[in-house]
């Protein structure tokens, strides 16, 4: 299964995952109040009598930009594994939020995944499946470093030396 550690596979997967997250962030960034209303519908982080409105509003403001930053890093290939870890954590949060809404029988017409206007995509079982698939890609990118260039080995000092032709 060495192909699983091929640098090109990781690069392609990171660009794909990054593009999904960057695209997902755009309308939420453009329409924060619309996204805040969707966050309210989930009833996970408020608003409630105990929490008030601030946590849900701050989440609605910060989440899209986190998606955008992580998405851009994945596309650019900078901090790739860490950005994949952040995306994975976000997806775990989404799975918990959607799962708990389904469990509590909360009917969420628009999951707030890619659009924040109108009906959008229903928060249902298929959304959980889709999130889990993206999560698999995220964990794969976060966990597995790419195979080191087979023509090189890393010395303990971190300097690169060529093993071939070496006695």
């Amino acid at each position, binding site marked *: 299964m060495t192909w699983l550690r091929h640098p090109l596979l990781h690069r392609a997967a990171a660009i794909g995952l990054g593009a999904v997250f960057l695209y997902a962030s755009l309308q939420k960034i453009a329409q924060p109040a619309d996204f805040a209303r969707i966050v309210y519908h989930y009833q996970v982080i408020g608003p409630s009598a105990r929490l008030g409105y601030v946590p849900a509003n701050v989440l609605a403001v910060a989440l899209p*930009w986190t998606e955008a930053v992580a998405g851009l890093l994945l596309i650019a290939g900078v901090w790739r594994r860490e950005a994949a870890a952040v995306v994975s954590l976000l997806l775990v949060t989404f799975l918990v939020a959607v799962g708990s809404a389904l469990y509590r029988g909360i009917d969420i017409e628009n999951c707030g995944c890619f659009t924040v206007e109108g009906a959008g995509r229903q928060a249902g079982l298929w959304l959980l499946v889709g999130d889990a698939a993206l999560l698999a890609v995220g964990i794969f990118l976060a966990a597995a470093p790419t195979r080191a260039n087979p023509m090189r080995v890393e010395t303990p000092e971190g300097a690169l030396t060529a093993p071939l032709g070496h006695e």
Partner: protein
Amino acid sequence: MPLAWRRVIAIPVAGLVLGLAWNAWSGRGLALAGNAFVREGDAIEEIEVQEARARMEKGALVLDARPRDFYDMSHVPGALPLPEDDFDRAFASIEDRLRSHFDIIVYCSGYGCEASHIVARKLAGQRIRAAVLHEGWPAWTDAGYPVKEGPQP
């Protein structure tokens, strides 16, 4: 090679900082302490449950914006059903009573529920003023006020 956890933390922190900055300066932001169900241009009054009870005793009309099944299970005594998902039909059947009341209160299922704001907005479009009961049905039951079961008001 382990993950650089500082970077993992730095990414959402950057998201938070960028988000707050965008919210403050883009002109598209929302009031962080405010209720996003209340939209710009809305003139919807939100009242607490004690105020709602006091107004009812003075003859205010109460409307239930939840889906009809919820109303039939249990509702505020005297409330009329005006479900947001069936607004036009329900409105037509009670329009006369709505236009003969000056004090109208709408409620729905609480914090995560937008139906009472939507109904109040639609009523405003018909030139009927209605206040929204803050925290809706849970506030009413938590206060220990009476409820009525079945389809009759």
